[in-house]
């Protein structure tokens, strides 16, 4: 059976000789495309929401984050159904224009690299939007006003004051999006786009070469780490701490005339494409197949997903606080490494993370059981790798990055002089953290919790592979049908994923609004 013996040496060379270059170029193309497009979506919307006043601003302010609750692979399927040849849009065009067959007209194909870029950007831009909006809101409006009174146009003031001040948030947001894009498999795979992730899967699962798969993964991560480090190095001298005082909230521009209408239609169009339209399609399917898809287990799966997400979000927040305060209290290379390490899992595809965490925990289990036998106890089986423990750990590996990034950017806005003042007034480190830092980063903590919660609700590959027997989450249940192209049956549980994602969202939003 030599065909399946592990062939470590040849497979990397084989990839280099054949498809590695294509995969690398496509990967770069997808990442660059998603970043640029997300920026185009997020930057203007965040700025208009934070700094301008126009009708429906209050609704849009939180609604623009809603696309986060939709799993990208579901959005991909919905859009493919809508836009492909037999979908309603092309069907309507054919009826309307009297076209007959494929050859009669041109219609862009969604199952392409561009299609994947658009869908990923539509589902991922909220990360950037959220962070940028926070940054713009946190900037004191006085700075902007000063720039304006010194003769700058609004655009110049934006370019020379607001924009540089938001660079840290932008960097965090963009790197989160880049990581999520690198780690995505389901969406690009659905669009038949082959990226380096494809190479990781092929070499590991088909050619059986773990080393090659690990090599490619490490190279991908290395590239990302270099980029992130370069970015933070380039603004190493930039330390910005805001004094509270007049914020943009008090000094919003009131938009009127065609400005108002342009902004309004732009933002609502974005929201419709990224959230409302896919949601309506899901609701339409769910109603049509309601009786087939409603069953008793659905409630159990919802609860499973919910508790899992709550636990993971709580633990991720804890991890984020620990590493971030570690860096704040004893900055240095070690702390930096800690932050980077805790974030890497996000850029790795779920299945790879899953197999990755299986390795140490199965070893631990085997060792533990061996010990038990040596001390003449009976074996207990896979207590770590066969239980929810490993599932939670796998999720943490995947999603800590989001919490770490979110705490990082909100802690960055708290001036260390506050800590110094508190310490010099006799407060201990713990008291300073609790009484000075925590209240100031409350918003960031809630955001971190919510984002991880939503990601955990959507997470599929880690759950699929690491779960114990008879344990379904909404996402794994959805996948059973989706993998057989039966999206109609998956619509109701998919809607539940979205709804469950909205609950903490609304709760936290309420909390934050009370605050303001």
């Amino acid at each position, binding site marked *: 059976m030599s065909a399946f013996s592990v062939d470590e040496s040849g497979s990397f060379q084989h990839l280099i*000789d054949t*498809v590695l270059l294509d995969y690398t170029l496509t990967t770069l193309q997808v990442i660059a495309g998603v970043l640029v497009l997300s920026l185009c979506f997020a930057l203007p919307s965040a700025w208009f929401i934070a700094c301008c006043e126009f009708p429906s601003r209050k609704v849009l302010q939180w609604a623009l984050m809603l696309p986060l609750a939709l799993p990208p692979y579901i959005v991909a399927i919905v859009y493919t159904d809508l836009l492909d040849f037999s979908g309603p849009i092309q069907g309507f065009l054919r009826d309307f224009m009297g076209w007959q067959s*494929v050859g009669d007209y041109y219609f862009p194909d969604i199952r392409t690299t561009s299609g994947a870029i658009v869908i990923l950007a539509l589902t991922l831009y909220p990360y950037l939007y959220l962070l940028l909006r926070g940054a713009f809101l946190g900037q004191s409006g006085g700075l902007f006003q000063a720039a304006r009174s010194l003769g700058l146009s609004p655009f110049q003031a934006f370019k020379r004051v607001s924009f540089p001040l938001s660079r840290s948030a932008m960097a965090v947001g963009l790197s989160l999006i880049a990581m999520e894009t690198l780690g995505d498999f389901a969406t690009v795979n659905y669009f038949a786009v*082959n990226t380096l992730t494809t190479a990781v899967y092929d070499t590991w699962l088909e050619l059986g070469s773990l080393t090659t798969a690990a090599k490619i993964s490490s190279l991908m991560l290395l590239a990302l780490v270099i980029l992130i480090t370069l970015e933070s190095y380039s603004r190493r001298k930039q330390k910005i701490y805001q004094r509270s005082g007049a914020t943009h909230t008090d000094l919003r521009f009131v938009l009127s005339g065609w400005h108002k209408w342009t902004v309004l239609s732009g933002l609502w169009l974005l929201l419709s494409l990224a959230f409302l339209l896919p949601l309506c399609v899901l609701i339409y399917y769910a109603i049509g197949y309601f009786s087939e898809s409603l069953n008793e287990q659905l409630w159990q799966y919802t609860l499973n997903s919910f508790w899992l997400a709550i636990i993971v979000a709580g633990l991720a927040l804890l991890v984020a606080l620990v590493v971030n305060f570690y860096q704040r209290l004893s900055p240095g290379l070690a702390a930096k490494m800690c932050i980077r390490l805790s974030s890497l899992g996000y850029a790795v595809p779920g299945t790879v993370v899953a197999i990755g965490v299986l390795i140490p925990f199965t070893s631990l289990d085997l060792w533990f*059981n061996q010990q038990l036998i040596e001390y003449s106890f009976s074996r*207990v089986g896979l207590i*770590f790798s066969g239980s929810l423990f490993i599932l939670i750990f796998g999720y943490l590996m995947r999603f800590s990055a989001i919490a770490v990034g979110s705490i990082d950017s909100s802690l960055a806005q708290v001036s260390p002089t506050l800590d110094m003042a508190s310490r010099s007034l006799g407060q201990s480190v713990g008291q300073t953290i609790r009484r000075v830092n925590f209240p100031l980063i409350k918003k960031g903590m809630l955001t971190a919790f919510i984002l991880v919660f939503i990601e955990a609700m959507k997470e599929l590959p880690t759950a*699929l592979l690491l779960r114990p027997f008879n344990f379904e989450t909404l996402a794994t249940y959805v996948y059973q049908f989706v993998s057989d192209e039966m999206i109609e049956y998956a619509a109701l549980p998919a809607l539940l994923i979205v709804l469950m994602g909205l609950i903490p969202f609304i709760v936290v939003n309420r909390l934050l609004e009370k605050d303001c």
Partner: protein
Amino acid sequence: MFSKKTLTRGATLVALTATSFATLAEEVNIYSFRQAFLIEPIMEKFTAETGIKVNILFAKKGLIERVKREGELSPADLVLTTDISRLVKLTSQDLTQSVNSDILNKNIPTQYRDPENQWFALTTRVRNIYSSSERVGPVEITYQDLAKPEFKGKICTRSGKHPYNVSLVASVIAHEGEADAKVWLEGVKANLARKPQGNDRGQVKAVKDGLCDYALGNNYYLGKMVNNPKQVSWAEAVSINFPNQKTTGSHVNVSGVVLTKYAPNKASAVKLMEFLSGDVAQQMYAEVNYEYPVKVGVKPSKLVASWGEFKADTLPLADIAKQHKAAVKLLDEVKFDL
């Protein structure tokens, strides 16, 4: 992250739960590459007959790695999978054990089980070539024809890397050698109407939409589409053809089962294997999933039977599986999916 105390407490708690599960009634644990809802009706029948509970864990990727890592502690008794290459992979990585069962030996013909009884096929499926019933009609065709210039721009298929296609390519390598297989694969690639994408049903839909005239697809999808209100019109747009009838015969793949090396519930697991090879389960595979039963004497469903008899490729499955890696590499070399 966790204090030692919490860890110990947690471990004890989980250990207690684990042991209490172990003392429950008889059960069988399955790692399944096949969707749970496909096999659940069959398992329910088994539980009703024997009282043995069946636990299923379904995933499409990574299950072999999981069994391997779990080693002697693995809770899995059986791995259920489609595609011969996975069965052989499990066996060659020493994750299986042989089963000596008269019932299995009687029910499953020799060519559908491992010579050392490490794996057993339960159903077979044909890699068909669908043709547009409107523009082409039923045709006599070979896989080799798909590389001919007159098929330019007329062929649709899912990703070449999907196990079903990898095995087809592997079978061509096994028959003709790597060099000829490469020329053939390049020819097919040049004839594709679009980049490989979607699944087998998607290709039939593409034929209906007029994007292509021929599509590669497994036989049972047609059965499923006929019974799906939304997809029945796709099914009606194609004719099903059994390729290579005058030459080597149609490429046939299998779904099958292995008993894991450290199966904790061996006796019950073997009972389930025997059940799966028996009349009741074989009939259900045929009726519910439109696959061909391996057991001699069990008839395929009426619909499947209506597609007619066909000549199957007689090359031993193990020979095809041996070319799996070569096939994956060949698909990269000709950049089939790009």
